[in-house]
């Protein structure tokens, strides 16, 4: 007997995107801009972004539409010797919503990729969505799988977020307020939210191995039976065969941690890092996906306050930032210098 399907409201697709990755440069090369700063300068909107800081420096992935780079000055990148960039892989973003913060849904999705032997490159959650960055060639297959695996409303059609060139031009002309072609002095938000003292754990696995994905999915699903809720999750492929998945939950008991640890590590080659306590800052509404420079402003505000960002994920209109425990409270006034809250 099969399990009942998980009910969701929709699947969303962003296609025709380019993914750029930036890796830390180990040797000191002096002051240089990072990719998100370049994008802000070149007025390019980033529609999905992940940032991870470790002892070597920051890893970053950005997805943006193909046309925006063609039109910008960013064509000349990278500056030789100063940057470690892997530019231009064609990707799509597939999002499922709403996730209701359920670990079971996250586990099910990761297991689904494993069962069907499809690797995802990155993953980011927002308030409502879990978004996967996948190779463009896998797009149709992933959409079909998701549509089959989830219980969707009968009225739903997986739709493209992108408007085709002609439609976009028409909409822009007739309804000019709908396209963001300006930058606010202070970026408006629906409010800055903080959750403190959360437990952040990390699993490192090979995204190209089906049994790794399945084991992670099963582990997260089982953890979901006891912990239920995640606050934020993101996964970044730092190297071709090493994906680092982070998940923020309420603090785990040692029993839950042990059960989860043994379940996930039953498959050889999967690593699990001991959870650390962190603060999570989330804000929605700065139109992250259709304004340029939003993430840059957020990072700038935190940098000026000497606050360190361990992890960040942006998708749709949301930004989530993970800071060392105790720093979240300082981040709110720092961010309010660049962002307006109701």
């Amino acid at each position, binding site marked *: 007997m099969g399990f009942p399907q998980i009910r969701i409201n929709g699947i969303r697709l962003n296609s025709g995107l380019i993914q750029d990755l930036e890796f830390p440069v180990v040797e000191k090369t002096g002051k240089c801009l990072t990719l998100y700063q370049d994008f802000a300068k070149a007025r390019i909107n980033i529609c999905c972004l992940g940032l991870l800081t470790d002892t070597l420096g920051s890893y970053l992935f950005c997805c943006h539409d193909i046309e925006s780079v063609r039109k910008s000055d960013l064509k000349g990148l990278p500056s030789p010797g100063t940057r470690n960039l892997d530019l231009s892989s064609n990707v799509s973003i597939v999002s499922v919503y709403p996730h209701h913060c359920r670990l079971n849904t996250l586990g099910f999705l990761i297991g689904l990729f494993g069962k069907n032997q499809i690797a995802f490159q990155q993953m980011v959650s927002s308030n409502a969505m879990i978004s996967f960055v996948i190779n463009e060639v896998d797009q149709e297959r992933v959409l079909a799988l998701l549509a089959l695996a989830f219980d969707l409303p009968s009225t739903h059609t997986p739709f493209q977020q992108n408007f085709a060139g002609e439609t976009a031009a028409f909409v822009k002309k007739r309804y000019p307020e709908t396209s963001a072609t300006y930058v606010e002095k202070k970026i408006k938000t629906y409010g800055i939210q903080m959750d403190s003292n959360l437990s952040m754990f990390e699993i490192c696995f090979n995204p190209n191995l089906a049994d790794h994905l399945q084991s992670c999915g099963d582990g997260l699903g089982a953890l979901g039976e006891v912990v239920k809720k995640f606050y934020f999750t993101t996964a970044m492929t730092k190297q071709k065969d090493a994906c680092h998945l982070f998940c923020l939950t309420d603090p785990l008991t040692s029993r839950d941690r042990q059960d989860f640890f043994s379940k996930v590590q039953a498959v050889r080659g999967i690593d699990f890092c001991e959870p650390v306590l962190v603060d999570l800052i989330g804000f929605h*509404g700065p139109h992250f996906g259709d304004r340029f420079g939003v993430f840059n402003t957020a990072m700038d505000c935190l940098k000026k306050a000497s606050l360190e960002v361990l992890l960040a994920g942006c998708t*749709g209109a949301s930004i989530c930032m993970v800071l060392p425990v105790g720093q979240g409270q300082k981040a709110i006034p720092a961010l309010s210098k660049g962002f307006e809250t109701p």
Partner: protein
Amino acid sequence: MSEKKLILVVDDDPDLVEAVSMKVEAKGYRVAKAYDGVEAMDKIKEEKPAVVILDVMMPRKNGWEVCEEIKNNNELKSIAVVLLTAVADSVKTTSYTHHDGKTTLADDYVPKPIDLDELMEIVGDHCS
């Protein structure tokens, strides 16, 4: 006891739909959700909500078109439509004004990013 009024929240940004829906539910209303104009029209015909909170820029059918369809349909025209618009006062290049928004048959508007309390007040007015 009277049945709770139904509010339809329509936006192609699922994060916004969730945020607004939580607020609407917290105020004691029932919520239906739609993520584009076509889905919205289906739900409006099927469920006849008291108020439609409607984004403008959406795939398949935009908010203006949905608003026009509602207000030109005798069976639906009593449904209150609150438009969510992305206009900022600082934008000088656009010919659009809030006044234009109100003359497009919508009952009210809220500029984006929306103030959820203001939105709830407007919804309350149209439900009373």
